[in-house]
């Protein structure tokens, strides 16, 4: 019998549908695999074993009755802990929401459940998604499955690590400035941030409302495409007014040839001083892998990209300040006892409930939106946003996708990033994509020559051309496989086949 971590999501769904194994057996194998890995990885904040077993039982009963099964029938999935799921707590890795029971289920979560997926648990993250290493979680750190002394990236570090360690084949994350693509890169898995509006944000605790987008992690592009189809097949979500309908044809188009497609590279970025040599080398390999399949490369420019970090750290904190204002301890979340006045209760609950980075971003946002300051920062940041969006439009007039790094380096060690601004600067390659609202995906392209850690290439595509983007991602994955350098599709070596036999 196989180990659960040897199967892709598509294979599990097919196996459950054929009756090779039951959804309940898949859950038991997954729980076993998780139990043996968690002491080292700590990807999860919560394992929803009962909920998973109940859901699996429903799937098995459906099959027994001969009812049709969904795309993800019996597939164990993990959700970043900023996604509401009734029957679980949604903590955002914050003391503020430590005991917060989800009052409703997020649309993205529900879509996967509707496709038959089994909710296995909630994953660790940077507190309220503020961070790039999952170190700002109020509860514990998560180890990178490739080297547990290193960070898994963030903010969706738990979801990336859970997939990389072979705990689940698919996990959802959210990406506000790179929070799916960067941890995917650090952990050697595929991570997609769809175009803003493709996946509903309803029920995902907001960080930066104009930047946030939900997307899947998988060990291969095929599983990511499968998850994307499950996420969008229900059409636009009437509960998110920014939501738009796209066809559920991600898998259908995946294997189509990419010959003749054009991919742009930005010379100045490839020469960027922050970019490590091994990442630069990996990007060259990625280019070669696509070129062998007939992809043409063109030089493009995003002239205002240097201003992206500054604009992002205005818009993001401004929106975060506003979105997190509701955590005042009155109706939910941490409430400081024995306060004499409402103002004192609000102040003390927030002081105790939020961690340092959450406070830093909210204070920054409160400052940036203050009258007199607004015109100096927020307004110019929006102007920069317009310019960057226009840059992208011009670039995509000349190519179908852009090839660029997902992060300047491979995963760093815990505590290595000593200042917040150092951490912020590392978002350089992912942030502008959220600012413009375009799609992006990171695809593992091999191990770094010095770090021996996974390195990814990032592909970015124009808004609502997510299907074509994923097709290029699949071509890149195929090219890397052909070159024999793959880390895609495989579990981090230290954790492969560690428990979880499907019996």
């Amino acid at each position, binding site marked *: 019998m196989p180990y659960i971590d040897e199967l892709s999501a598509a294979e599990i769904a097919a196996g459950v549908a054929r009756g090779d194994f039951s959804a309940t057996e898949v859950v038991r194998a997954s729980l076993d695999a998780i139990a043996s890995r968690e002491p080292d990885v700590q990807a999860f904040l919560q394992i929803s074993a009962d909920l998973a077993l109940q859901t699996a039982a429903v799937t098995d009963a459906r099959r027994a009755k001969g009812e049709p099964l969904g795309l993800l029938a019996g597939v164990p999935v993990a959700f970043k802990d*900023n996604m509401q799921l009734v029957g679980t707590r949604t903590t955002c890795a914050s003391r503020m929401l430590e005991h917060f029971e989800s009052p409703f289920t997020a649309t993205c979560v529900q879509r996967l459940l509707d496709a038959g997926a089994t909710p296995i648990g909630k994953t660790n993250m940077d507190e309220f998604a503020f961070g790039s290493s999952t170190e700002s979680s109020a509860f514990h750190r998560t180890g990178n499955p490739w080297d547990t002394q290193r960070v898994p990236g963030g903010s969706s570090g738990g979801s990336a690590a859970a997939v990389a360690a072979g705990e689940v084949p698919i996990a959802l994350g959210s990406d506000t400035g790179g929070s799916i693509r960067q941890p995917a890169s650090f952990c050697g898995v595929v991570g997609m941030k769809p175009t803003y509006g493709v996946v509903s944000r309803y*029920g995902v605790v*907001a960080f930066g409302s104009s930047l946030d987008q939900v997307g899947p992690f998988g060990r291969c592009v095929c599983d990511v495409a499968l998850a994307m189809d499950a996420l969008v097949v229900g059409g636009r979500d009437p*509960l998110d007014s920014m939501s738009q309908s796209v066809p559920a044809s991600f898998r259908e188009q995946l294997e189509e040839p990419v010959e003749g497609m054009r991919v742009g590279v930005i010379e100045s970025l490839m020469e960027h001083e922050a970019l490590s040599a091994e990442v630069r080398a990996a990007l060259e390999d990625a280019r070669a892998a696509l070129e062998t399949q007939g992809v043409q490369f063109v030089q493009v420019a995003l002239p205002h990209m240097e201003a992206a970090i500054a604009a992002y750290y205005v818009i993001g904190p401004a929106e975060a300040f506003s979105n997190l204002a509701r955590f005042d301890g009155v109706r939910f979340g941490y409430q400081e006892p024995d306060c004499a006045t409402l103002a004192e209760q609000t102040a003390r609950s927030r002081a105790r409930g939020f961690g340092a980075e959450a406070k830093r971003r909210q204070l920054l946002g409160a400052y940036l*939106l203050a009258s007199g300051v607004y015109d100096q920062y927020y307004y110019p940041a929006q102007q920069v946003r317009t310019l960057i969006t226009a840059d992208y439009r011009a670039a995509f007039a000349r190519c179908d996708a852009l090839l660029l790094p997902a992060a300047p380096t491979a995963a760093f060690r815990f505590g290595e990033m000593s200042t917040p601004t150092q951490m912020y600067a590392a978002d350089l390659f992912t942030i502008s994509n959220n600012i413009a609202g375009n799609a992006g995906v990171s695809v593992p392209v091999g191990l770094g020559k010095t770090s021996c850690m996974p390195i990814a290439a990032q592909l970015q595509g124009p808004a609502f051309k997510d299907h074509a983007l994923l097709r290029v991602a699949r071509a890149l994955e195929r090219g890397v496989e052909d070159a024999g350098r793959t880390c895609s599709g495989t579990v981090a070596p230290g954790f492969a086949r560690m428990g979880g036999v499907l019996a």
Partner: protein
Amino acid sequence: MRPLKEVLRDWEAVIGLEVHTELTTLQTKMFCDCHLSHDDPPNTNVCPVCLGMPGALPVPNEKAIESIVMAGLATGCQIQRRSLFYRKHYFYPDMSKNFQTTQGPVAFCMHGHLDLEVAGEGAAERPDCTMEKAADGSYVVPIRILRIHMEEDAAKMVHVGGTEGRITSASESLIDYNRCGTPLIELVTEPDLRTPEEARLFMERLRQTFLALGISDCSLESGSMRCDGNVSIRRRGSRDFGTKTEMKNLNSFKALHDALAYEICRQAELLEAGDVVRQETRHWEPSKRRTVVMRVKETADDYRMYPDPDLAPFDLSDEFIERCRTRIPELPLDKRDRFVATYGLRRTDAAQLAADPMTAAFFEEAARTVATEVVPTVANVIINLLPATKKVMPAQVASLAELLASDALTFAQAREVLELVDGTTDDPQRVIDERGMRQSTDADALAATVEEVLAACADQVRQYREGNRKVVGFLVGQCMRASKGSGNPKLFSRILRERLTREG
């Protein structure tokens, strides 16, 4: 304090109003599907969105946007095709997200106006009016509207265990989120109003307009229409603005008028004594007929307004705006003018009928079936007799008006008949026939009644003979009473005069 009339001779008041109107006639809240009702048990019409739960998102109510566009079109506003929702931040639990979703510098409706007709006593409050005054002293003044914007209402808070329901002394506070997220439109006038009467008339006009549009029940008592008044005063002839105070709790037209009148007089007294007016928010206490300080505003609050990233900018289409325009019914002033032109009603009667859409519709339904010359009688019945009854039908009023117009019935009898047919489908004609209530024009029978009355009223007869001709009115009244309202009062009067003259 000196009386208002006197104060206004020396001082000019500068008044601006902020009027909040809940769109009570909508089915659902502004940004969620929750049922719109304040009468249900507390916290039953709530959902993750209006409770501000983490992860919940707003979706705008299209019907609410239609309502505000209609309000804008009806008040001469320019409809802004492009506008945005903003977030206005303040920490207080009546706003579940700790920010209110409202509009920024550009509202759906900008720069409108309403023309007020000020007449009678109220017109005298503005002695130096630069507007052309009619012979009776009345004048017409345009009041500019700065904007009407869309926002959401806050939850209702009840402070328990303290004095006067104020939070500072309360032992606990209760929150009912049923109201949270109610679609609210806020209209802000330019500071064009000069007298409490103008302010009262403006509110009345606005209420009638919104009632006609059917966008709200516009109840000042229950708070579905709320008005704050800003007032400052300056020496007559001055162009400078004084320090203003803001008035709250103006939950009736009378409260609005009286609070402004009080405040103008209070400010005048302060300034005349060499004191200064402090910028503050004041609360009208109707029982004590005075305003008291609620809070002093020393620094402007910083609400950190910025465009709501969860709501895309609006780009209203011409079709949408035209659809709203076609949904605007005849407005009260147009209706009044038509009633005057079509039915020959007195202007004041026409205005009274046109003020309320239900009354106007009732009138037209009743007027439809009667001859043109009877229509003013229909109006008369509705204005003078109808308020006492509840369920009278237009056809019954029409029938009654015809009887009145043909002198077959006295007004007193008409009142009685209305009470009899109230809540039934009975035809007044039949009720009258059954009860023999027709107005008597039998001169002999009336003369007999006159004799009875004269015999009983020796004093008045003497007064008449001494030259007090007015006493006839009293005697007619006695005759009406003796005939139980069935005698024709004109005939009684004639017979009485003949009889008294003959004797004298």
